[in-house]
């Protein structure tokens, strides 16, 4: 009976209208470069002050979920991830668009985002307390190794010029994260005397600079159209006929990416970017054709988008149970809860259970609504990209990119950073260095440094430096994964070469 009252609480006309509107707003905001999920939720926060607590949470949660999906629009169509969670979506989504399969990528992204989002919500409802215990097992050393794992897999997987150049790109990203005030000691580092660099290099200008500006610069090189669609692919992509078979053949990928998203989501500060990269890596490694990843394999889009939407609800576990926000967007939602007088922690599940479960049901409805709204918007977004000529698309991308880098912190200097990194990214991309590991290094750098320094201090205090980094069970598992991710490509390539040599002889 109680459950029915929660359902009735969600299915009021005002709530349904708010959910539908928030899904549209969330997709649009998520698609805009420079507006991350956290910024999207923060932008609409003031609107919720006059709402009922449950309605306010549904509104914010729906925008968070929809913006996480909306990030895939830029990633697939323009190689410009609207949010950091969609970085891994660019690897295969953008090549799919370039070869005329953007509509299929958009359909898949929409469908798996809904599946990932709903699975995350179901797991939150069923497993919130045990998952929070798992979150508590992640100390500084585990977080440090998790960050290193994120950078290492990205480096070895997306390095078009080979694993060494990929690793260098990742380390270069970590080096960029050193700029500004140090996370623990408050030293001002590598600012070259420029006040604009004291706050560090922002992830949004860097993302825009390294991933979007090179696309604009590259458009100038040849007369080729932006999307090279062969005649055989110039037919309408149908959802049931085309997307569903691809999804069926990626059943295991979908399940695995969901599980990865759920577990990474509960780890505070890990978030959707790491989840989508881990899922992408796992999908590639277990695929029968790993070489097709990064060249437009739909499995890459499925892995990334499933995992990042699965983290949305699972990241509510540390936020609601431990009052530790899993991601920056969760921090904004936590602030909204405090503004509405809601006490987080175990008490939330008893004192405000009605609000919590109404919120979860509302979020489920919003996630389900992403399917029709997202399919409609995604199809039209792709048709727009296909229809417009390159001479309009290039300045449009340049304008939105530079505006996006400005709007991140209302800083003119961020535009300069985006442009400088864009020029640099384009130059080094021509020599085989890839930008995504650099972006990820920059994103994870502060987390890795903070965790590393904390673990180092704990080790010094307990007189067990080696034990703190190398002796904890979860750390050992992650270290093994790091070693596999770094050395497996070399070993595999040597084995292939030897086999080839044997065949020749």
């Amino acid at each position, binding site marked *: 009976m109680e459950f029915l009252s929660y359902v009735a609480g969600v299915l009021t006309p005002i709530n349904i209208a708010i959910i539908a509107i928030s899904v549209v707003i969330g997709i649009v*905001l998520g698609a805009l470069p420079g507006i991350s999920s956290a910024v999207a939720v923060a932008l609409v926060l003031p609107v919720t002050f006059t709402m009922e607590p449950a309605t306010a949470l549904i509104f914010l949660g729906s925008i968070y979920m929809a913006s996480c999906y909306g990030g895939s629009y830029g990633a697939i169509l323009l190689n410009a991830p609207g949010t950091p969670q969609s970085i891994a979506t660019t690897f295969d989504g953008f090549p799919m668009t370039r070869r005329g399969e953007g509509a299929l990528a958009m359909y898949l992204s929409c469908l798996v985002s809904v599946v990932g989002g709903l699975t995350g919500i179901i797991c939150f409802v069923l497993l919130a307390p045990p998952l929070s215990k798992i979150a508590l097992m992640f100390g500084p050393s585990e977080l440090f190794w998790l960050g290193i794992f994120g950078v290492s897999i990205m480096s070895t997987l997306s390095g078009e010029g080979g694993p*060494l150049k990929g690793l260098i790109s990742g380390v270069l990203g970590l080096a960029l994260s050193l700029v500004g005030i*140090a996370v*623990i*000691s408050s030293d001002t580092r590598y600012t070259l005397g420029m006040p604009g660099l004291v706050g560090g290099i922002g992830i949004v200008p860097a993302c825009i600079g390294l991933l979007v500006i090179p696309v604009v610069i590259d458009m100038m090189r040849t*007369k080729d159209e932006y999307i090279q669609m062969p005649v055989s692919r110039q037919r309408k992509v149908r959802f049931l006929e085309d997307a569903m078979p691809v999804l069926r053949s990626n059943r295991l990928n979908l399940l695995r990416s969901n599980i990865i998203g759920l577990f990474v989501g509960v780890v505070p500060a890990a978030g959707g970017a790491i989840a989508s990269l881990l899922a992408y890596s796992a999908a590639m490694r277990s695929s029968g054709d790993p070489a097709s990843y990064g060249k437009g394999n739909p499995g890459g889009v499925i892995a990334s988008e499933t995992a990042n939407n699965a983290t949305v609800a699972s990241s509510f576990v540390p936020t609601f149970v431990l009052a530790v926000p899993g991601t920056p967007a969760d921090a904004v939602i936590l602030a909204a809860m405090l503004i509405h007088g809601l006490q987080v922690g175990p008490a939330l599940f008893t004192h405000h259970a009605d609000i919590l479960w109404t919120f979860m049901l509302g979020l489920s409805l919003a996630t389900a609504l992403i399917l029709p709204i997202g399919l409609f918007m995604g199809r039209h977004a792709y048709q727009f990209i296909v229809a417009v000529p390159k001479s309009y698309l290039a300045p*449009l991308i340049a304008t939105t990119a530079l505006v996006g880098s400005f709007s991140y912190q209302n800083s003119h200097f961020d535009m300069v950073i985006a442009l400088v990194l864009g020029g640099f990214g384009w130059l080094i991309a021509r020599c085989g260095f890839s930008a995504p590991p650099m972006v990820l290094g920059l994103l994870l750098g502060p987390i890795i440094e903070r965790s590393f*320094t904390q673990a180092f201090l704990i080790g010094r205090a307990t007189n067990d430096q080696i034990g703190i980094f190398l002796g904890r069970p979860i750390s050992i598992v992650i270290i093994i994964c790091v070693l596999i991710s770094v050395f497996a490509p070399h070993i595999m390539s040597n084995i292939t070469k030897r086999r080839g040599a044997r065949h020749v002889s």
Partner: protein
Amino acid sequence: MSPDRKFPAEMAIAVFLALLGIYILFSSRSFSALGSLFPRIIGVLLLILSLSLVGSLLNKLRKARAVLSESVHDPASPPKEVMLWRSFASVAIMGLWVGLVPIGGFITTSLLSFLAIAFLVPREAPWTPRSAAGMAVSGLVTVSAIYLLLTKLLLVPLPSGYLF
């Protein structure tokens, strides 16, 4: 780019990154003990990896030359016309836009750079007065729409200057 043509650029980047590693290491001496811990690790890693790349590039070049001296030139399909100057010009236009936006304001500079980039994009069909006018109108509508969406609807401020 062919391996031989790519080599100087790749080598230059590898040397630049090695020097960057040395700079990171050298500068970390002025930080506190905790503040210098992570930069030192990154500096050393960057240095080692960059030097490995230098070695790998030299090795690859030696092998490539050996293979090239034995192989016959493949008369494959003619290369596409690549207009690198346009790429550099687009960076210059964006640079000018970023530099002039505090003076000219968002709408003025964005519209000018929008049109400059649009006319710079290589295309098969030549520009006619009609297509150029259409692009000018599209640029004005697009820039105005972005301005209105961000400043009026989302209340996100945009760069302002002496003009508008």
